[in-house]
């Protein structure tokens, strides 16, 4: 795969230099470490929200730091967790006494480091930290049983968690309320993806897996984790139907429900194709009597230059609708209230 980079070793560092140079009014780094990004617009008394994870998923994670969404983010090398120390640096910076909520995806390395950071924040800095772990990928594990540990990976649906928790924090709700909102979103979001081509981690230098010229893999994770079915590339409508039905059956989403829809490009799939997918989603949902409240189409959580897309549904009630439609202004996600 051809890349516009200098050296694999400097890839993420230079990307981060670019981010700060491009958005000096919105984000800055702390602790002398480019991997620790915080908003320039700290709001006194507000619950701080931090996220983090490996690089290679822009606009995840750091693109959502800004007004109405997140306050800070630590990021690691490509597909690698940042360190607890880096998370702690972000945590210290964004806390303004109301505590900090961590929202991140369900990956082993991230969990360990966020847990450690939370412990250090408490032990060393006396900052109250709560955590919500997003695991929305229905292809990555059995349905979540109430009360049981969620074994599913977090993918694009985390956008909805950021959006609503961010809006709740912007309303100056206390930490436990912001956490409740984040958990409520997690319970109501489901995602499934499809991959058409692999991506190449620059340091590794070769594609992370192989897919024949006429194949796709339904359910593949954003780091190339195995999906649930590999097979011949199907027409768009058939792909959507296969993914959407599994999503709908999982929660399940029912006639009369109102949902937000997210069609997310993984990197190399044109927006045109995402809209072809959306068209089918719109048809299927309307046939099933599921109402679309609002739709988001574009790249929200990518996997470098992987071709493919994911679909997320988010079931709404009045509280969540109000939070979803609230304004947000970040480097990558901007929304006027609607």
């Amino acid at each position, binding site marked *: 795969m051809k890349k516009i980079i200098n050296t694999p070793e400097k890839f993420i560092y230079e990307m981060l230099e670019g981010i700060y140079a491009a958005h000096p009014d919105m984000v800055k780094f702390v602790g002398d470490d480019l991997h620790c990004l915080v908003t320039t617009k700290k709001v006194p008394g507000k619950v701080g929200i931090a996220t983090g994870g490996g690089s290679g998923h822009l606009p995840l994670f750091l693109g959502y730091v800004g007004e109405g969404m997140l306050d800070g983010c630590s990021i*690691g090398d490509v597909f690698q967790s940042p*360190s607890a120390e880096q998370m702690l640096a972000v945590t210290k910076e964004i806390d303004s006494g109301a505590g900090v909520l961590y929202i991140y995806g369900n990956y082993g*390395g991230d969990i360990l480091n966020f847990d450690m950071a939370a412990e250090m924040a408490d032990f060393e800095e006396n900052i109250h930290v709560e955590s919500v772990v997003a695991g929305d990928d229905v292809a990555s594990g059995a349905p979540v049983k109430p009360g049981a540990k969620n074994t599913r990976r977090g993918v694009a649906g985390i956008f909805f968690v950021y959006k609503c928790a961010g809006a709740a924090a912007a309303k100056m709700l206390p930490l436990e309320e912001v956490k409740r909102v984040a958990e409520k979103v997690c319970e109501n979001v489901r995602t499934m993806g499809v991959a058409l081509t692999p991506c190449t981690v620059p340091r590794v230098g070769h594609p992370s897996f192989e897919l024949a010229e006429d194949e796709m893999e339904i359910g593949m994770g954003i780091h190339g984790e*195995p999906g649930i079915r590999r097979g011949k590339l199907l027409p768009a409508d058939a792909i959507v139907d296969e993914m959407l039905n599994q999503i709908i059956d999982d929660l399940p989403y029912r006639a009369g429900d109102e949902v937000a829809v997210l069609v997310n490009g993984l990197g190399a799939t044109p927006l045109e194709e995402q809209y072809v997918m959306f068209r089918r989603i719109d048809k299927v949902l309307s046939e099933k009597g599921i109402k679309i409240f609002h739709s988001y189409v574009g790249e929200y959580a990518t996997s470098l230059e992987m071709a493919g897309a994911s679909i997320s549904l988010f079931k709404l009630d009045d509280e969540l609708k109000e939070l979803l439609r609230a304004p947000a202004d970040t480097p990558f996600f901007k929304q006027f209230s609607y």
Partner: protein
Amino acid sequence: MLSANDFKKLIQHWAEVMVANRDYLIELDSHVGDSDLGLTMGDGFTAASRAIADSDETDIGKLAYTAGKAMSTAVPSTMGTLMASGLMSVGKALRGKTELDSQGVADLFQAFFDGVQNRGKAQVGDKTFLDGLYGAVESLKVDAAAGASMTEAAKRAAEAAHRGFLGTKGMIAQFGRAAGRGERSRDLLDPGAAVADLLMKGYAEFMSGKAE
């Protein structure tokens, strides 16, 4: 007895052991994971050792905590964070101790074990680092209660760790990348347990070197 100075040297020895076993760990991790374990353990223990090498601190707990934090900063991979958690847990448990007897060393490795378990939430039998360390800690506790020499106890703990490591063949991985393989993980040795094996072997070498 194990002094604060000994503790610093032990960590330094562990760093040397991990660097020397870089390719061995890479090879093990390449079958189940992403092949980074040799690099992260070498880098991680080296960073931990460097962080305390020149310290005048005599509090073993404080040394362990500092070493752990350095490790976590250097290598935020799974095992990096787990080893950091182990060391930081030792730090909290041994705060104020300036030297350790047999029981103190058993407490050290128990705290290390607990730190890893609290962080990673795995159980013995889940085919992880814990399966390497578990028998060693039990052995240290028994020997401490029986009044065995520290060198003898260390040797037996290393043997227990090695058995624990070998025993991971036959287990189904519940954590980490290997868990994705389910039943197909059974025939493989767990790389994290190999690290436990190396740590206890390193500790035994260090104690027998001291005894000479």
